[in-house]
């Protein structure tokens, strides 16, 4: 299977094509089988490929399938590769993707455009697999843009709803800004290395052989890395390009789970981790990544505190967790970042799917203020969502505890930009952990506990079908055990297996010194993180269950802060005023009315009018009256004779021409 790696992405593409072309008239059952079958097969193929990869014991499997672009000595091929990082990504994408496909068959059962939904979803799987399997930046960019396209199509799935189609466009346009940076980054890399193959670039990456002008604080690499990070910011919804992700919740919930939580938005982290060798040589870029990630984590978490739409809370939570991952990458703990990526894929997908199950049970209601007391009625959804909440809040032994713990540890020990920067990042990360625990338990308490705040006569709360519950349970199990791969060393039998697993990929780029510190430090940090998470949860418990009247009072007493948070720091309004309005003005008044209407249309229409006018004038010579033609013949003959006889030298010329 390793030799036929292309089959893994091809299967979802086939599924997408079959469903998209022929699915319109098929019953849901057949569309299901095609969609689930293709992704399931892809998952099995991926498993088999991974097995073969480990059996062969190679560090990196790389195969060129065909040349896509060849120009002079530049080559961009359809080359796929597999190493430990790819293994993690491929298994997460196909595995979680498959579960979400199954869930979606239940969730979307009553929707129109069922085949269209699954066609897009499979298309997304195809591009995402291209993205993670690609062996050069160009092919990666194909997947990168492709997942953007699929994301756009799926956010705007309910395209008759204006807010949904607007959200789709917003996602697309904001991503374009990031992609612009990504492409410039690629161009810089090409100028520096004359190739865009991962291996070729990274192979020349020993510190000694590295050209001096490339690395360093303001070398080419710093700019290339910053530009690539700009692309990552767009795709992974970091400051200042995060604005599209909360709006992307307009899409169906399985889409939010798959694309906007588990897989696509982690593409930015993947790219940064994939380019870790470049980043390791660009300390300034690393610092920027860490600071942006940390700031985003905190910033998004604060907005998440006050949102009332269940999916929006999760969206801001996703932005915040992605910030954590960038924080990890920025402090050189790439394996911790990828580890959090994996556990996050489990528990955040679970959170979204469970939220979808809640919405399903409530008949489409998304406002948490109109829920409450659901825990008895939808027991399984409640239990699975609680599991995911414990995981994301960082309670041991759930998955999130281990990954968040290792990120915070790495931030604490960070060497980039000095010790104090590391402590500041750690402090902000810890504060984010507190906020995370608070808003997640707020969500749980508002949704599942307390008194019902919905109209019990009209809303018939019902548990979701098994096709939706089964993926929830599998993901719940993964959210618990998913972190045990990387049990930290202070636990009995704990060796950071995950970091060791990724060692062949990240190797020297990982921040040194992680081993040097005593395990007691790690233990203390873990205890602090746990205490913080517990504090956040207890505060949410006190505020929303014990003394619910206090919540409003608190909001009142902190009125300005509360309003600012509720309005998401007015970021959308700020962007509208600073970017969108001027752009629209220029587009309308300069590009549209001057350049397009007056310039281009004017030129085209002017030529047309001119031609018509000339034709109208000349038309009268062709009267159709034979004798008027005869007059012209005579006039012509007379002119020729006149030229021959009276034009100086003309006669000779004309006669010469005749001869």
């Amino acid at each position, binding site marked *: 299977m390793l030799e036929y790696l292309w089959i893994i992405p091809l299967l979802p593409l086939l599924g997408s094509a079959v469903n998209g072309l022929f699915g319109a008239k098929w019953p849901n059952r057949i569309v299901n089988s095609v969609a689930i079958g293709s992704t399931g097969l892809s998952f099995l193929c991926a498993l088999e490929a991974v097995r073969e990869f480990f059996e062969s014991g190679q560090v990196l499997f790389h195969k060129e399938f065909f040349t896509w672009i060849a120009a002079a000595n530049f080559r961009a091929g359809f080359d796929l590769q597999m190493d430990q990082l790819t293994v993690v990504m491929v298994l997460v994408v196909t595995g979680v993707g498959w579960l979400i496909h199954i869930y979606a068959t239940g969730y979307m059962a009553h929707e129109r455009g069922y085949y269209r939904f699954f066609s897009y979803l499979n298309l997304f799987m195809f591009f995402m697999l291209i993205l993670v399997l690609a062996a050069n930046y160009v092919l990666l960019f194909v997947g990168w843009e492709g997942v953007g396209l699929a994301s756009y199509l799926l956010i705007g799935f309910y395209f008759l709803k204006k807010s949904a189609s607007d959200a789709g466009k917003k996602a697309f346009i904001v991503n374009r800004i990031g992609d612009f940076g990504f492409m410039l980054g690629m161009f810089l890399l090409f100028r520096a290395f004359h190739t865009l193959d991962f291996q070729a670039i990274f192979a020349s990456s020993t510190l000694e052989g590295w050209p001096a002008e490339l690395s360093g604080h303001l070398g080419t690499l710093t700019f290339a890395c910053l530009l690539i990070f700009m692309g990552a910011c767009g795709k992974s919804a970091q400051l200042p390009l995060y604005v599209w992700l909360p709006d992307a919740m307009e899409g169906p919930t399985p889409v939010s789970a798959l694309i906007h939580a588990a897989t696509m938005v982690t593409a930015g982290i993947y790219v940064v981790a994939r380019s870790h060798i470049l980043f390791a040589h660009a300390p300034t870029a690393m610092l920027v990544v860490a600071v942006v990630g940390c700031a985003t984590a905190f910033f998004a978490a604060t907005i998440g505190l006050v949102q009332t739409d269940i999916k929006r809370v999760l969206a801001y939570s996703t932005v915040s967790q992605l910030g954590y991952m960038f924080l990890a990458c920025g402090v050189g703990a790439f394996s911790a970042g990828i580890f959090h990526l994996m556990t996050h894929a489990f528990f955040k997908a679970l959170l979204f799917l469970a939220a979808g199950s809640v919405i399903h049970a409530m008949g489409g209601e998304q406002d948490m203020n109109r829920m409450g007391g659901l825990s008895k009625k939808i027991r399984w959804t409640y239990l699975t969502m609680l599991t995911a909440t414990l995981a994301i809040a960082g309670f041991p032994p759930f998955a999130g505890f281990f990954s968040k713990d290792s990120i915070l540890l790495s931030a604490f020990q960070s060497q980039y930009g000095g010790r104090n920067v590391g402590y500041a990042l750690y402090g902000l990360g810890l504060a984010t952990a507190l906020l995370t625990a608070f808003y997640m338990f707020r969500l749980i308490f508002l949704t599942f506990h307390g008194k019902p705040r919905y109209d019990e006569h009209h809303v018939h709360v019902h548990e979701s079908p098994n096709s939706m519950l089964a993926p929830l349970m599998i993901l719940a199990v993964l959210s618990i055990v998913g972190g045990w791969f990387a049990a930290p060393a202070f636990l009995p039998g704990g060796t950071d297996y995950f970091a060791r697993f990724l060692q062949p990929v990240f190797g020297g780029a990982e921040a040194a010194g992680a081993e040097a510190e005593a395990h007691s430090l790690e233990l203390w940090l873990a205890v602090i993180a746990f205490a913080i998470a517990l504090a956040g949860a207890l505060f949410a418990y006190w505020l929303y269950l014990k003394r619910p009247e206090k919540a409003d009072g608190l909001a009142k007493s902190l009125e300005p802060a509360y309003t600012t948070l509720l309005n998401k720091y007015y970021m959308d309004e700020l962007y509208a005023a600073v970017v969108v309005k001027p752009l629209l003005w220029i587009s309308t008044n300069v590009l549209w009315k001057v350049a397009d209407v007056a310039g281009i249309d004017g030129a085209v229409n002017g030529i047309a009018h001119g031609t018509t006018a000339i034709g109208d004038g000349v*038309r009268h010579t*062709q*009267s*159709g*009256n*034979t*004798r008027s033609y*005869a*007059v012209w013949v*005579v006039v012509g003959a007379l002119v020729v004779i006149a030229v021959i006889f009276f034009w100086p030298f003309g006669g000779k010329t004309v006669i010469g021409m005749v001869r």
Partner: protein
Amino acid sequence: MVPTNYYVVLSAVLFGLGVFAFIFKRNIITIFMSIELMLNAVNLAFVAFSQALGKLDGQVFVLFVIVVAAAEAAVGLGIIILIARNRQTLNVERVDLLKL
């Protein structure tokens, strides 16, 4: 012996008359006759030059022109008869179905 100039001038005058009649006359038969007049004006010039230069080329051309004129007269008269039958008129101003 009459000088060649005289023939050429006569020929030019006849040709001019033919052109004038062709352009300004309305009766289709008159137009037809003016064409014949122009052809014969040219014939006269040919013969005059042939005589003046002592070469027979011009006279050969004249014979060709007469043959073509005869053929043309046959075809042209046929067309005129058809027009007269179909349109009950010989006025070219009214034979204008192809006009804009």
